[in-house]
């Protein structure tokens, strides 16, 4: 009784109560700040190591950008990019998505090694860009491949409803289309760089590769710098003084992994649900994937991991593109306009 009486006296003591309530208040305030709103600010880091931009890689990178945009705790984004570019439409999509992210959160892009052509187009969506003096940037231009000067005639068995139904356009229009894409690319760079750009359109569309040193001097890049500069700049633009880092790649992978586990089912680790078996179709060998092993990523599992990744991200779409139309007798050609730095001019 004596102990309880003593505690009661302390609690009813007004000085102690004041200190206690103030401490609780501080705790509540900090809990609200850190766990409810707005939380400790974070800078999302998206790593894009040497990547040729394709439909697949664009899908994944767009997932990263979308995650960074939706995640409230991420107040700014740093993208570390190395890319020679790739497909024209895919590259432009990355530019659009980066620009969309920039309209909500500052995006600082670090040009590592090579950021050329479609990769450079993506960088135009960033709020600020850094490059090292030895980085290679630029290559504003288009690569395309046409039919021979006199294309082979379609087989007599092929019936189409217009002279351009099969080929799409004639050689002259192909030249014009390539030129339009070049103009469009240059227009994006000129619009985004504004007064900073010290190259004329004619010089820009010579599609030269510049060193980071030249790139900064010519206004193709904002500043020299690396990751630390990028984080500082991102924090500055976001208006945060102290921040944590979020590995966006990892977070998206975790998200994907959780979704995959949902698909596979948790009752028996590795046992695949009938739905997954159905999704695998003819590729399914009957052996359940070892998810633990997949996560570890031994080379032998990479192929099946990639397949799982595609299945999880696309469903069945794209998985069977090797022979998409089994009875179609003509070879299908992909659109072949590229914002790509090839390296040797061929």
């Amino acid at each position, binding site marked *: 009784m004596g102990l309880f009486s003593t505690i009661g006296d302390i609690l009813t003591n007004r000085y102690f109560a004041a200190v206690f309530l103030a401490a609780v208040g501080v705790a509540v305030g900090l809990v609200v700040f850190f766990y409810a709103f707005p939380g400790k600010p974070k800078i999302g880091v998206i790593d894009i190591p040497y990547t040729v931009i394709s439909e697949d890689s664009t899908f994944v990178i767009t997932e990263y950008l979308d995650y960074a945009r939706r995640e409230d705790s991420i*107040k700014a984004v740093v993208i570390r990019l190395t890319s020679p570019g790739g497909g024209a439409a895919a590259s432009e999509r990355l530019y659009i998505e980066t620009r969309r992210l920039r309209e909500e959160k500052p995006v600082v892009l670090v040009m590592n090694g090579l950021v050329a052509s479609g990769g450079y187009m993506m960088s135009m969506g960033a709020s600020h860009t850094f490059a090292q003096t030895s980085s290679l940037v630029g290559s504003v231009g288009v690569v395309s491949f046409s039919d021979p000067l006199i294309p082979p005639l379609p087989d007599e068995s092929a019936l189409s409803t217009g002279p351009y139904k099969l080929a799409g356009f004639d050689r002259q229009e192909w030249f014009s289309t390539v030129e339009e894409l070049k103009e469009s690319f240059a227009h994006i760079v000129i619009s985004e760089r504004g007064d900073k750009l010290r190259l004329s359109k004619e010089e820009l569309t010579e599609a030269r590769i510049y060193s980071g040193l030249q790139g900064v001097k010519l206004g193709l890049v904002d500043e020299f710098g690396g990751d630390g500069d990028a984080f500082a700049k991102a924090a500055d633009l976001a208006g945060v003084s*102290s921040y944590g880092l979020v590995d966006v790649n990892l977070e998206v992978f975790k998200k994907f992994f959780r979704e995959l586990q949902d698909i596979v089912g948790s009752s028996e680790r590795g046992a695949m649900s009938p739905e997954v078996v159905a999704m695998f179709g003819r590729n399914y060998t009957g052996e359940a994937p070892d998810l633990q092993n997949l996560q570890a990523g031994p080379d032998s599992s990479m192929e099946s991991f990639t397949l799982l990744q595609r299945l999880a991200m696309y469903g069945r779409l794209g998985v069977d593109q090797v022979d998409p139309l089994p009875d179609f007798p003509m070879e299908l050609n992909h659109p072949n306009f590229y914002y790509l730095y090839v390296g040797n001019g061929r």
Partner: protein
Amino acid sequence: MVARLVIFALLPTAAVVAFLIAFFAFYRGGYDAPPSPDLAFEQITTSSAPSRITQELPPGPARSGLLVVDAQHSNAFTENELVSFTSQVSDRGFEVEFVGDFTPVLDPSQLQPRFNQLADKLRQADSFAVILPQVPYSQAEAALVEGFVRKGGKLLLVSDPGRPQSINGLAKRFGVDFQADYLYNTTDNDTNFKRILIRDFQPDQITAGLETITLEYASSVQSSGGGVAFASPNTRSSVLETVGAFSTMAWGESRNVLAISDFTFMVPSNDSLLDNGRLVSNIADYITDSQRDFLLPDFPYFYSNAAEKVDILLGQSDLLSVGLDMKTGLTRRGTPSQISPSEDLSQDSVFLGLYADSGQVDQYLQTAGMRVDDTLGTPFVTELGLEGTAMYLLDQGQDRDMLVILADTPETLASAVGRMLSGEFRGDLLSDFLGVYKFVGAVQ
């Protein structure tokens, strides 16, 4: 009561203060996204494609002759791509023949037959087109083409930096050097920097009526004969990286050799752009305007009046079998002939006789500076014994070619005609008009 209220107010106050302290410790302000530039893609304009011209081309003069097109050296084009040009040549009365089948000769034993085939075609040809050979010409082949050009044959050399080719070994023999570059112009072009516009032409038959042509992918060409079509002054060379009035079409050492550094301009449908069609037409005019000399080594193609039969004249009636051999041989080579009892001075002819019959062709012998008596005298070799010998002589009149073959015996004559028809006689030639054959078998 008030003190209690104050104490209880401490909790929210402390919470707010802690929240604000934390907030301002981490946040200095918000992100104020700068407005993104309005891209307004619809305002993008590209240089419009050149209007296609269906130009009424001047009709070419009707001529007869043969254009041979090289297809022996894995040439990097197809017959379909050349159809615009070959049609223009055919429209002018020329025949067009391809020598070879576009495949390389991999078997070394086939090299000599390939050479013989080329030699035979060039004996017939008035003009020769070498377009994008991927296999370089051998020294012997190049010498053959040189001989063809020396006789007045027209040679068209076409290169293109966009296709594999190995033409310079041959071209350099004629003073032409296709550069290992491509020309480009980033401001004055036909929808692409490599598609250059040519407006600067030297006044010439080959450039008549041309205002602007478009070359899809051209190199520069240097030539001792001088250029005839030049890129605009701000055009650059990919190798030299300098601006200049680069030549894309040039004469070789003589006007018998024309070099062009782009092939694609003559390919349908590029041949319908701007004045490209007119250029193709002009080249066809040039090719069919050959003044080639057909000489004794070109037997039997010096007989130019293909529509009329060649008269075979016999010095003696017992030489009929030799005459029939000659008739059969000429027919096999596409030259119709007939045994004729007497000389018609308006007809191409071949005279077959013995030295004893030399009086019948004395005028031709004298013109050539030859003498037949106890010995055979020629401008090159004097006092050659008659025994076991035969001689060939080509007399080219204004409208008539007369071939004279004389020998000491009917057997030697038969052997000489056999060498004539097999082509071995070319080893007996002393000049482009005269040959002497020593029948070794008869001497022994």
